[in-house]
């Protein structure tokens, strides 16, 4: 072979060899990434105990499309506060099912220990890419309990900017909930029914709609820092009472004893609570994730306010401490809220409600969750990656909640709540 220049011929021949239509990339044989989890939740003093197994599975469908499914079961038992409070005398209440009574001893906080519930919750999300820089996530959810059904739809549109360093998201959510109290819908401010009397009820079910709007921005600050800021507006319309919570009607706010003569002698001196049928919530949420040399800090702050007069601050900090082949993650959460405007310890006969049973105030509830309260949570998680993309982790959290009952006569305060969460997770690809 004479030495000659063949570069051009070679290029032509190669071009012919490779010109064939680019082989269609094999449709990605996507696989499911699966998260499974089991939560055991236990409140001290025989209050609520819950077990919640859950599974989430998501898979990429190619072209930035993705589907996600979630199934969560929830089984609860235990005692839950009924809206009353401890007094110097024993108190008798009717159970939510309306067919029996229970007695709370003098000096004890009234707890309804017939509380049982089971819940199934299903969720599905479909992420649809619009173009390289934008996408929509459609979501649907359904959850059912014996006395509550919720159906929800969500849509979230995201647009990337700045080399994908900035993402703006606009989201819309709509929920339609149906409340079916065990023994019908109690008439607001009507006396707690005597067992098996079938009175003071107005129908079997109520509804509630929730419309959520959120705009958010996620920003990559630098190689190690990511921040997120969300503003949400949530409008709730419809039935928002807790149908099982009652309020104590008293003659004398100091003793706090149930009124001796309210309506008829047969009536228990407790009335069902009443909350506004609309609620507007405004939420600001900020989150920052920062990578240190090895470890990762995940911090969030939420400011919440609504037109029920509740304002709250939530601080959440997780520190992921990397070990050789695993990690430890301490968690601290602090929450503090003001009371709702209509949160009341009890209803004073003659001032808040007259002897004929007519309410003289618009709304009232003694649900401690609407009181001024703080929650402190301390947790620790240990995670260990197990080879190819699977990870096992276990998490324990201690929650302590205390209600600030200033002004409430001694002995009638809402007791503190201590709870424990134990959770195991196993994530894998399948």
């Amino acid at each position, binding site marked *: 072979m004479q030495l000659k220049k063949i570069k051009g011929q070679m290029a032509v021949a190669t071009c012919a060899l490779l010109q064939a239509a680019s082989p269609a990339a094999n449709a990605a044989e996507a696989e499911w990434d699966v*998260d499974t989890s089991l*939560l055991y*939740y236990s409140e001290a003093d025989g209050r609520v105990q819950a077990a*919640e197994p*859950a599974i*989430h599975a998501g898979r990429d469908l190619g072209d930035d499309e993705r589907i996600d499914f979630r199934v969560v079961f929830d089984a609860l038992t235990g005692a839950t506060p009924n809206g009353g409070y401890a007094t110097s005398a024993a108190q008798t209440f009717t159970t939510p099912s309306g067919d029996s009574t229970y007695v709370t001893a003098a000096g004890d906080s009234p707890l309804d220990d017939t509380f049982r*519930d089971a819940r199934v*919750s299903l969720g599905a999300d479909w992420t649809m890419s619009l173009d390289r820089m934008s996408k929509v996530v459609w979501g649907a*959810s359904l*959850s059912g309990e014996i006395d*509550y059904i*919720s*159906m*929800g739809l969500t849509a*979230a549109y995201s647009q990337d900017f*700045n080399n*994908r*360093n*900035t993402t703006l998201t606009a*989201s819309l*959510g709509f*929920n339609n909930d149906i409340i079916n109290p065990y023994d019908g819908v109690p008439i607001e401010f009507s006396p707690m029914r005597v067992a098996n009397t079938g009175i003071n009820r107005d129908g079997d079910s109520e509804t509630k709609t929730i419309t*959520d*709007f*959120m*705009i958010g*921005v996620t*920003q*990559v*600050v630098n*190689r*190690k820092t*990511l*921040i*997120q*800021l*969300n503003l*949400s507006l*949530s409008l709730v319309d419809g039935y928002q009472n807790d149908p099982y919570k009652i309020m104590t009607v008293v003659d004398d706010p100091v003793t706090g004893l149930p009124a001796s003569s309210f309506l008829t002698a047969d009536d228990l001196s407790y009335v069902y609570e009443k909350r506004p049928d609309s609620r507007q*919530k*405004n939420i*600001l*949420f900020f*989150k920052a*994730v920062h*990578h240190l040399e090895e470890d*990762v800090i995940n911090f969030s702050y*939420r400011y*919440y306010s*609504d037109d029920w007069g509740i304002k*709250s601050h*939530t601080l959440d900090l997780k520190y992921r401490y990397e070990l050789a082949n695993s990690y430890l993650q301490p968690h601290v*959460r602090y*929450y503090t*809220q003001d009371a709702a405007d209509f949160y009341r310890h009890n209803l004073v006969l003659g001032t808040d409600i007259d002897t004929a049973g007519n309410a003289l105030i618009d709304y009232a509830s003694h649900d401690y969750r609407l009181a001024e*309260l703080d*929650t402190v949570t301390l947790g620790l998680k240990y995670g260990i990656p197990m080879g190819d993309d699977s990870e096992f982790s276990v998490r324990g959290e201690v*929650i302590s909640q205390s209600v600030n009952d200033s002004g409430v006569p001694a002995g009638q305060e809402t007791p503190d709540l201590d709870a424990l969460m134990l*959770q195991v*997770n196993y994530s894998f690809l399948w």
Partner: protein
Amino acid sequence: MKRIATVILLMALAGCSSMGVEPWERDLLAKDSMQLVPDYFDNFYDEHIYFSKEASSGGQGVGGGGCGCN
């Protein structure tokens, strides 16, 4: 509060041009631990529990709740 939030949002947007990384600098951001919600069910359970124990909820997204527990 709304006004403050709007100002913060605008500041965040204005700051974008000087923030950010190039695609090849996303090594750390790509890690699971650097995601906004790194633990699917930790977050899910937390939201669920505090929804039933506190008066506030939401902030991270829309929907959710859907529970007679509050």
